[in-house]
Structures are given as C-alpha cells and as structure tokens.
C-alpha cells in the first residue's frame, strides 16, 4: 500500500508523529502560535487601553484579569507573545545559522581553522551573556525587536557551533563523505548533498533549542527594562507587574499568568526536542 510505503520511507517521521512528547509539544506550540496570531483579533481591547476596572481577577470578560490600572492582562499577554515569537524566530535563526556555519567550518576543515574557531566559540561560551547583553543594550538608546533579536542571536550561538562541529566530524569520517572528498566534489556540494541531508534533523533540534534559549534571554532583557523601547513584550508585562506591586497586592493573575504562558511555550519546545531526540536516538526510546 502507498501509505505503508510512505511510512517505511519516512520512518523517523512516523516515529516523530507517534511520539507522545512530540505530539504534546507540537499541539501546545501550535496553540501558542495561534494565540499570538489571532489572540489580538479575539480580544476586544488594545494592549494599552484601560479595558475595565482595575484589580479584576480572571473572568469571562477578562480571561487573565486586569492590571492595577485596568488594562487587560490577556490582551497584553497575546501581544507580548507576538513579540516573543518574533524574537525567537529572528534570534533563533541568527544563532542557529552562525552556529552551523562556524561549527561546520571548524569540523570540516579541522586543523588551525578548527583551533581558531573553537577558541572563539569557547570564549563566547564562558562569557556571561546576560552581562554582555546588558552592557550592549545599556548603551543603545533606542531598541527595536530587531535590535534585541540581533544582539541576542549574535551571542547565543556558541554551543550550537560546538554541537554542529562534533556532528560534522562524525559524519565527515563516514565512508560516503570521504568518498565524495576523494572524488574532488566541491565542498558546497558535499555540504548540501551529504552533510546537510544527514544533519537536517539534528539542526532542526538545535533550532528548537535556540528558539527557546533566545526567547528566555530576550525576556530577561525585557524584564530588566532593556527590551524594545516601544510596544509590549512578555518581559515588560512581567516587569510592570513586579514594579506595580502585583505580587504584594495579590494580583497573581498579572504577576504569574503571562510568565506561565511563556514557560508553557518553552516547555512545549523542550517536549518537541526531547521527543525528537528519542526518535533519532532509539536508545532513549527504550525508557
């Protein structure tokens, strides 16, 4: 049967789609994306509008309650989620790209290129990034989502480079790549046909981790007040909540729910990642 043939050919996809963790993760992630895309359309309020009374706990009119001033926390959360996704996509992509390129070059060419690139990578790796981000952001008077994404992305790549390097090393030493190399096929083609194809799943997983990692880094900056200078972001919502005494005043919906949404988003990414890990490394599947 055609279907059976298809699954046979894409065994990993089959395992991925039957893996409980991947399914749960993807469902939640999709839900979050939908929330970010359609959430703002679903809510009758705008994020900075005084939508009602202050201090309102969650209700039908205000799913996540209202802030002290009467802004709708749900609206703020979904708008913030948008910016969070934007940062994750942009910064995650930048970090993954840089990491892959450096990791591949180091792994493929070896020798002094490897030494030099790994030196740089290790330096970035030990650098306390938040401190670096703070010092960068502190000197940038106006910051947009793009600026934040770029500085976060530019600093988040090192572990990806290391991981990709060791993957490249192991794939490089497999017979078929050696064969291609001996037959004088261009590096680019080897990269595209042999290595990229074999590393696709791996890079995908790396991307997922970078996505969540950069989101967390960006939210940390936002919480410090070093996020985008305009608009609303999840870190900013949380910073507001802390600054406006949401904890002490007992407005848990304001202090906790936006962060909970973020945490669930990150958990979903972890689930997808570990699920895929089990798919690609059957040893973990046994458990």
């Amino acid at each position, binding site marked *: 049967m055609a279907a059976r043939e298809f699954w046979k050919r894409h065994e990993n996809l089959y395992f991925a789609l039957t893996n409980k963790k991947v399914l749960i993760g993807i469902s939640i992630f999709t839900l979050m994306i939908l929330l970010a895309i359609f959430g703002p359309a679903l809510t009758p309020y705008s994020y900075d509008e005084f939508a009602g009374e202050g201090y309102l706990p969650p209700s039908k009119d205000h799913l996540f309650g209202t802030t002290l001033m009467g802004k709708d926390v749900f609206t703020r959360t979904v708008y913030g989620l948008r910016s969070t996704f934007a940062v994750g996509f942009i910064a995650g992509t930048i970090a993954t790209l840089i990491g892959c390129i450096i990791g591949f070059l180091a792994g493929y060419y070896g020798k002094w290129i490897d030494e030099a690139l*790994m*030196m740089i990578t*290790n*330096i970035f*790796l*030990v*650098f*306390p*990034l*938040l*401190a*670096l981000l*703070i*010092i*960068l952001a*502190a*000197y*940038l*008077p106006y910051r947009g989502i793009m600026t934040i994404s770029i500085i976060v992305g530019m600093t988040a790549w090192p*572990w990806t480079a290391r991981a990709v390097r060791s993957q490249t090393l192991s794939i490089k030493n497999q017979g078929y790549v050696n064969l291609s190399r001996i037959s004088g096929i261009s590096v680019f083609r080897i990269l595209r046909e042999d290595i990229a194809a074999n590393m696709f799943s791996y890079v995908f997983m790396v991307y997922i981790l970078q996505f*969540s990692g950069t989101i*967390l880094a960006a*939210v*940390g900056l936002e*919480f*410090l*007040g*070093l996020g985008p200078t305009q608009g609303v972001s999840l870190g900013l919502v*949380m910073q507001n*909540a*802390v600054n406006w005494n949401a*904890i*002490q005043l*007992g407005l*848990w919906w304001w*202090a*906790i729910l936006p*962060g*909970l949404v*973020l*945490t*669930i988003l*990150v*958990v979903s*990414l*972890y*689930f997808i990642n*570990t699920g895929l890990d089990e798919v690609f490394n059957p*040893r*973990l599947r*046994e*458990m």
Partner: protein
Amino acid sequence: MGKYLSKKLLIYLITFFIAVTINWAIPRFMPGDPISILLSRFSGLEGGREIIEGQFVQSFGLNQPLLTQYFNFWRSLFAGDLGISIYVFPKPVINVIKEAIIYDIILLVPAIILSWIVGNKLGAYSGVNRKADNIMMPFFYFLTSAPYFWFAVVVAFIFGVKLAFFPISNAYSSTVQPGFNLPFIFDFLKHWFLPFLTLFLVQLGGWAIGMRNMIIYERSSNYSKYMESLGASDRLIRNYGFRNGILPQVTGLAIRLGTVVSGALLTEIVFSYPGLGYLMLRAILNQDYFLIQGCFLFIVIMVLAANFIVDIIYMIIDPRVRLSYSGEV
C-alpha cells in the same frame, strides 16, 4: 594534564582580555556618543559637574591617542581603579562591588552545588525508575523552562505573600544588627532562602534531565551489560553509571555557569537581594556607567574563576584528562 590546564587558562585569559577591551571600547565606539550624553547628564549638578567631568576626562583620557587610552585603561585596572561610582558618589566602584559580590557568592555557591548534587541524584533515580521518571520528568521540564525571574515571582507569591513564611526582599531585616549572632544569622537565612530556592529549583530541572539521560545512556553501555552479565547488582551498576554520567555533568556545569549567574542577577532583582545583579540594575537605572562596567567585569571574572575551578575538579575526577589521553577542551 599540563596541556589541558594551560589550554583552558589561555582561553580564560583571552576572554578576560576581550571583556576588558569591550569594556573599554563600548563607551568609545557605540553609536550615539554615550560619553557626551553622560557628560551632559551631570551638567545639572552644581559643583558636582566639574568633579565628574574631571573624572571622565581623566579616566577616559579623552584627549590622548586611542592606544594610550587603552593602555592607561589596563594600567588603572591593575591598580584596582575602576573609577568612582556616580550612583554611590563618591565611592570607588571597586569598593561598591566588593560589598555586593559577597551576596552573590553566598547565594550562588550553595545553590549551584546543592542543585547540582540533588539534581543529579534525582535524575539518576529517575533514569532507573520508570514510575518516578513519569512523575518527575514533566516537573523537571517545567523547572528548566521557567525564566528565573518568573519563577522568583511565583516563589515570592506563594511563600512570601500567600503563606507569608518568608520575607521577599532584602538580605536581612531592618532591625537586626549584622554580625555574628544567632538572631542575625537566623534572619539572614530567612531572607536568603527564597532567592536560594529559586536558583536551586530552576537549575535542578536541568541537572536532573541531564543526569537521567546520562544514566539511561550509561545503562545501555557495554560495561553495564558486562557487569550485569557477571551478576553485578543494579546498585553497583547504577553507581558506576553515575560515576561516569557525572563527568559530562561537570562539563555542563562549566557551560551553564554563565546562564546561572545571569539567572541569579534577575532573581536578585525580584527579591531586591543586594548582590551584583541588583547593583547592576541600580546602576542601569542611574546611568552609572562606571558601575555597570565594573559589575560586568566582575561577573566575567567570577564566571571565569568558577570555570577554572570546575576544570580542576574535572581533571581530578576524569582519569582520561588527568592522564592526558583526551585533548578535548
């Protein structure tokens, strides 16, 4: 052994060198001319302005060639001179930082060590016990996904506001006299607990997940099979697996130190715990660039030092490195 350490040291030295250079370069080369903005900020302070301007001209050496400025920067750095704080005027930045860094150490060292130990133990248990695994793993994922400061808010809300067991700000009560006495120590621990708990728990998830995977991995390794074939008990095999699984976890410790320190900075802010993170926030809010730079430098030094300690520990526990059979850095 020598090669391993010297290679590591080289990396740390270069990192330190770069950190200092960044510190030097950012205010000079960033767009928007931050120095002149800084200068204008103090124009409002009668009398104070001249002092701070003098300090700027002196420490930035603005009238000298760039290279000279750079060397002077290093010279004063080695003399322990990081400038004078604006926010805590006129205290030298180095003194301000010295007083704050104690709190980071008191908070971070136990949190890192305990969470590493407990996380590894729990992870190892989870790796061999399916039931425990199913219950604990989602929890660990949750912990490791939570942003430090959000978790701090949750902990503060539950333990500080709802249950009101612990204070949620400062390092000790306003009324106790700091010193070596029981009321103070007790009070200090009470204030210390929630930020500690936050750092402890958020990290815990990561260690546990790491160890669980390591244990499963080690459990399926050949030596485990061999030992089981020869009748070794689960306990012994688990111990062996733990012993080997610990190694990547130690390396992981080095890799994650930076994140943990960042997390501590944010946690301190939520709990107004007067360490470097809190200090840095104050410095940001007060545009105290000397202090921001000082904090940055000290955080880098702290992380590098911790990395170096981890390296030495790693060397002690991994015979492969000790015997120089592995060049992996």
